């Protein structure tokens, strides 16, 4: 079998062959879980990535978050770290619990929602103010790394038809809406300050005239469908969802800043090695809101690309992988 040879490798144990075979049929980073000690970039480095075992990367229960987490994971692997993945854990309350009990070490977060989660009384609304408030609010054992410019907010959307018929372009117009306002979003929204409670407290929509339907798809296609089909009047859809422009949805203005800035920000536990922060920082510096929209489009659109593929392509495009 003359064509089947690993010419550049001198020593190959049978385990090594098996590992290569596995790497060959995986679409993950080819360096994969290689022993960091053998990576020329890290051998002379004082940093000991393997000291605390693998870095466990988790994500919230929706695909955009998994894509970002996958980007972090592959960037860490590129730098020689061993990574364990635990994707789509669930809602914030659950993955936050996983972070505090040590099941995962780092999760991509969104600054504003995280702040309101940690400190319901927080008043900061601007990106920088939120980050500094966040640094205060994060309990011992956890820390936030540098945020990305990229932002993905919750946003209250209506169809253009609904907007025109009722003359509603802003959340402030909702108080004048007659009848029952049927709204949809993820189940936890029912109790979030930017959910129905906020609509009542901040925009004066009577609580009894809001009918909330929980849809467990993270503002995904089914939520969009419910809105477009007229099953609900208004839905919480994340701003990086391609369907907002595809379906011509109207994002209601939020003059009172009920929904505060939501920059992508990694939330890490003390188990996350300090010297790996630079790798995550490099990713966040490069990540833009447009990137998120494009990545979501590949994931939700016809291509249905997997988070791993999307992450690899993005990292390669930004010169953060294989360069």
């Amino acid at each position, binding site marked *: 079998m003359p064509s089947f040879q690993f010419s550049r490798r001198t020593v190959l144990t049978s385990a090594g062959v098996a590992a290569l075979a596995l790497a060959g049929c*995986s679409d993950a980073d080819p360096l994969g879980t290689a022993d960091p000690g053998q990576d020329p970039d890290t051998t002379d480095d004082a940093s000991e990535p393997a000291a605390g075992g693998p870095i466990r990367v988790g994500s919230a*229960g929706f695909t955009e978050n998994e894509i970002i987490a996958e980007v972090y994971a592959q960037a860490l692997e590129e730098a020689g770290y061993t990574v364990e993945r*635990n*994707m*789509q854990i669930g809602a914030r309350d659950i993955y936050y619990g996983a972070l505090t009990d040590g099941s995962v070490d780092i999760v991509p977060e969104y600054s504003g929602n995280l702040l309101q989660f940690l400190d319901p009384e927080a008043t900061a609304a601007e990106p920088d103010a939120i980050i500094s408030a966040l640094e205060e609010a994060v309990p011992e054992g956890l820390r936030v790394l540098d945020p990305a410019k990229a932002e993905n907010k919750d946003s209250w959307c209506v169809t253009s038809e609904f907007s025109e018929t009722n003359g509603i372009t802003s959340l402030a117009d909702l108080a004048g809406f007659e009848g029952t306002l049927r709204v949809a979003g993820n189940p936890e929204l029912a109790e979030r300050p930017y959910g129905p409670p906020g609509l009542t407290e901040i925009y004066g929509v009577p609580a009894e005239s809001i009918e909330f339907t929980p849809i467990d798809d993270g503002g995904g296609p089914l939520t969009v469908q419910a809105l477009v089909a007229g099953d609900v009047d208004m839905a919480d859809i994340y701003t990086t969802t391609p369907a907002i422009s595809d379906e011509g949805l109207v994002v209601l203005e939020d003059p009172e800043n009920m929904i505060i800035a939501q920059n992508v920000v990694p939330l890490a536990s003390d188990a996350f090695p300090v010297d790996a922060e630079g790798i995550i920082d490099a990713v966040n510096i490069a990540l833009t809101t447009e990137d998120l929209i494009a990545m979501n489009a590949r994931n939700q659109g016809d291509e249905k690309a997997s988070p791993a593929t999307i992450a690899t392509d993005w990292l390669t495009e930004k010169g953060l992988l294989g360069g």
Partner: protein
Amino acid sequence: MNLAWVSANWPRIWDLTVQHALIALVPVVLSLVIAVPIGWASHRSRLARRTLLPFSSILYAVPSLPLFVLLPVILGTRILDPVNVVVALTVYGVALLVRTAADAFDTVGLATRDDALAHGHSPGQVFWRVALPLAGPALLAGLRVVSASTLSLVSVGALIGVPSLGYFFTDGYRRAFPTEIWVGIIGTVVLAAVFDLVLVAIGRVLLPWVRATDRTRA
């Protein structure tokens, strides 16, 4: 079906299939080990029968999701620990199998038992040499149901972040992608078929007389 997606994501599919199988394996084995003594006790004692059997059928009606979440509190495990799912599924397996075991020992019949005792077997010997082998076919049939139901329930763990084929259900739902959900369903059914074949094969080895009774009415 989007076959390109299937081949592009094959490593992930394989990985989750293996995890799914591993999580299901322990509960299937444990439920047999635990249900047989309870079933035997229910067969021997009226009190045990009156209390254990109704309790086990109600246990089966407890929704799985809260049980998954409650167990870390009780066991002191981590939220994402697959142990939670394993323990919960064992509870269901036992609940499902206890009644089958009790009924199986009942059908072995008092006559057989008394006969064996009369021949000088100790009660322990009666259990191991007479009752258990005779109840074997019914226990195997029950265990096959437990295996199918366990494999199907593992996927609910995806709602609390325990990786299994259930990931494809929630992720496929979130992006309205039927192919991905199909992959999860087919994977689960294939695993169920494999588990079933293995159980039947084990049954053939341990209970060689099952074949003869296979076609008669239960």
